[in-house]
């Protein structure tokens, strides 16, 4: 089973701790809609990444078996440390080019689309970056880092980056010189002028100091998080695809195929020697979906069930493979889109959600094992009843008004 399954309870409990600590310090570092949307981004990225393992691990194994120079022993501590350092070096370049090449930014923009900076932001991951991120690690396969060691080191690097997504930890003294910390990662997520294209490191910040991309957090300037061209949506599918859609439209407007190619390889702002427009922090306003409290509670509750379902999905994938897990994966994605649509008060989301709930009720009675293992009759009745109650409650809710709210914003 994916190790992420074991990390999910840690993620959720630390998010709760962060909310509580922020509350007692009088800081507003969370927005329910944003945080729930981040979790949905994370959930569907896990679903997609499960299916794209061929790209992430499969190609690595193939290159390792064909071109490896050496066979690294797994029992050497020194080599494990070296593997972490080398992996992080590759990660630095991967991350940097994810920011500097428009085609790759289309995937990575997802992670930066939140205008809040908290532990849930760490879980806001791209569903498309698995298609190209593997390229940056192929030199490790050629060096002879075994696939198992590679997978574990990748997990260490990924999990390390979780805790640095918080506003509640201040500067950390000497630690700042060597390692990525919440302070220097806040700069990375900022859209202030001094924050753009800075601090790409995963575990070690020394790469940024070495390659000239380091910027220290400024005391006199509050960091505003997010991207210069905000997506202004909580929809996880649109969040993953919007930049590619823009890029495609731009490429179609280009005068020939070479111009389209240049556009894809250019930095997100295009090939220009001009400085970025000045960012006015005082005029910055976060995206507010203005979701009613009742709807936030409804979506949050369903998000918890979706996380449980993700655990079931990963378990099914482990035993039955891609074909067996596909229906569950599709259901998770549809649910995520539907719930985030409700957060945005989209009209279509109400109908999609009601259809989903009706389908759950019918399927629970007619097809006991349609999603995961067959449940006992009492459980099925309970789920079907709950789905019908939700359906009826939803019918009483007014979910219109997003367009007007956006216009007002």
């Amino acid at each position, binding site marked *: 089973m994916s190790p992420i399954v074991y990390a999910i309870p840690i993620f959720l409990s630390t998010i709760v701790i962060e909310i509580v600590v922020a509350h007692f310090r009088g800081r507003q570092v969370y927005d329910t809609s944003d945080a729930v949307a981040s979790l949905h981004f994370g959930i569907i990225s896990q679903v997609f990444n499960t299916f794209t393992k061929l*790209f992430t691990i*499969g*190609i690595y194994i*193939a*290159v390792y078996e*064909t*071109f*490896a*120079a*050496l066979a690294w022993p797994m029992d050497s501590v020194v080599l494990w440390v070296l593997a972490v350092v080398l992996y992080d070096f590759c990660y630095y370049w991967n991350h940097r*080019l994810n920011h*500097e*090449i428009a*085609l790759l930014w289309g995937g990575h923009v997802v992670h930066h689309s939140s205008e809040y900076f908290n532990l849930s932001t760490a879980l806001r991951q791209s569903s498309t970056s698995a298609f*190209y991120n*593997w*390229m940056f690690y*192929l030199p490790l396969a*050629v060096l*002879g880092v075994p696939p198992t060691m590679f997978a574990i080191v990748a997990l260490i690097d990924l999990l390390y980056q979780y805790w640095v997504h918080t506003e509640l930890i201040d500067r950390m003294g000497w630690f700042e010189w060597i390692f990525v910390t919440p302070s220097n990662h806040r700069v990375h997520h900022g859209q202030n002028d001094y924050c753009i294209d800075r601090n790409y490191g995963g575990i070690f910040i020394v790469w940024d100091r070495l390659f000239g991309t380091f910027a220290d957090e400024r005391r006199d300037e509050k960091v505003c998080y997010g991207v210069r061209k905000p997506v202004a949506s909580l929809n996880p599918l649109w969040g993953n695809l919007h930049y590619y859609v823009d890029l495609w439209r731009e490429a179609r407007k280009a005068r020939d195929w*070479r111009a389209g*190619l*240049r556009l894809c*390889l*250019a930095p997100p702002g295009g*090939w220009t020697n001009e400085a970025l427009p000045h960012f006015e922090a005082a005029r910055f306003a976060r995206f507010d979906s203005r979701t009613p409290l009742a709807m936030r509670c409804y979506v949050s509750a369903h998000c918890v069930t979706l996380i449980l379902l993700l655990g079931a999905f990963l378990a099914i994938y482990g035993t039955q493979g891609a074909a067996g897990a596909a229906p569950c994966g599709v259901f998770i994605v549809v649910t995520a889109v539907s719930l985030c649509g409700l957060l945005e008060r989209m009209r279509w989301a109400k109908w999609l959600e009601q259809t989903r709930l009706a389908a759950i009720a019918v399927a629970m009675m007619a097809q006991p094992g349609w999603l995961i293992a067959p449940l006992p009759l009492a459980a099925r009745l309970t789920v079907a009843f709950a789905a019908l109650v939700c359906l009826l409650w939803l019918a009483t809710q007014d979910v219109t008004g997003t367009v007007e709210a956006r216009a007002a914003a």
Partner: protein
Amino acid sequence: MNADAFSDLALALICALVFFRRIRDMPGLAIPALVVGVAACFGVLRFSGVAVALGPHRYASLFAACAAFPLLAYALRFPDDPIARRLTAASRFAFLLGGAGVAAVVLGAGKWGDAAAALSALVILWTMLLARDSLRLFGALALIAGFVITLAFAPDAHFGFVTPVQGLHYLLCLAFAALMLPRRPDPAVV
């Protein structure tokens, strides 16, 4: 040092010369020289008996076939394009194309690298025919000849005193010298 290693050394030296000569004005030519040069350096080690260099040499050669030759063809065909003129654009082009090519080959499309290199050579030949540039036309023909002898003959075949692999290396030296060293105006073909 045996004859194979020597031929790779010659190629590595030519590539270094091209790289340092063209890196400022034509990165689209310098980057292919760098990629092929790295492969040649691994080749020198491999043919000198350094066993661990075998994998890196094969990997770098595959990467060069998938990335360097298409970039070379692009830069010669469109010399005023930012991908030919900007270091970042040229290196991004090579990196993404090389990564995709390596993946295609290890996932089963075994001839991808050969096809990319051969197609690139044909594009270069066509460009030089249109430009009526005799020196570079000679370079394009040397490039094609190098690929032909590698594909057409077994690695252990002999032509006088050179094997097909050595022949490829020497013909690449000639091709690179003719195509990339001269700093005359590049043949912009519309």
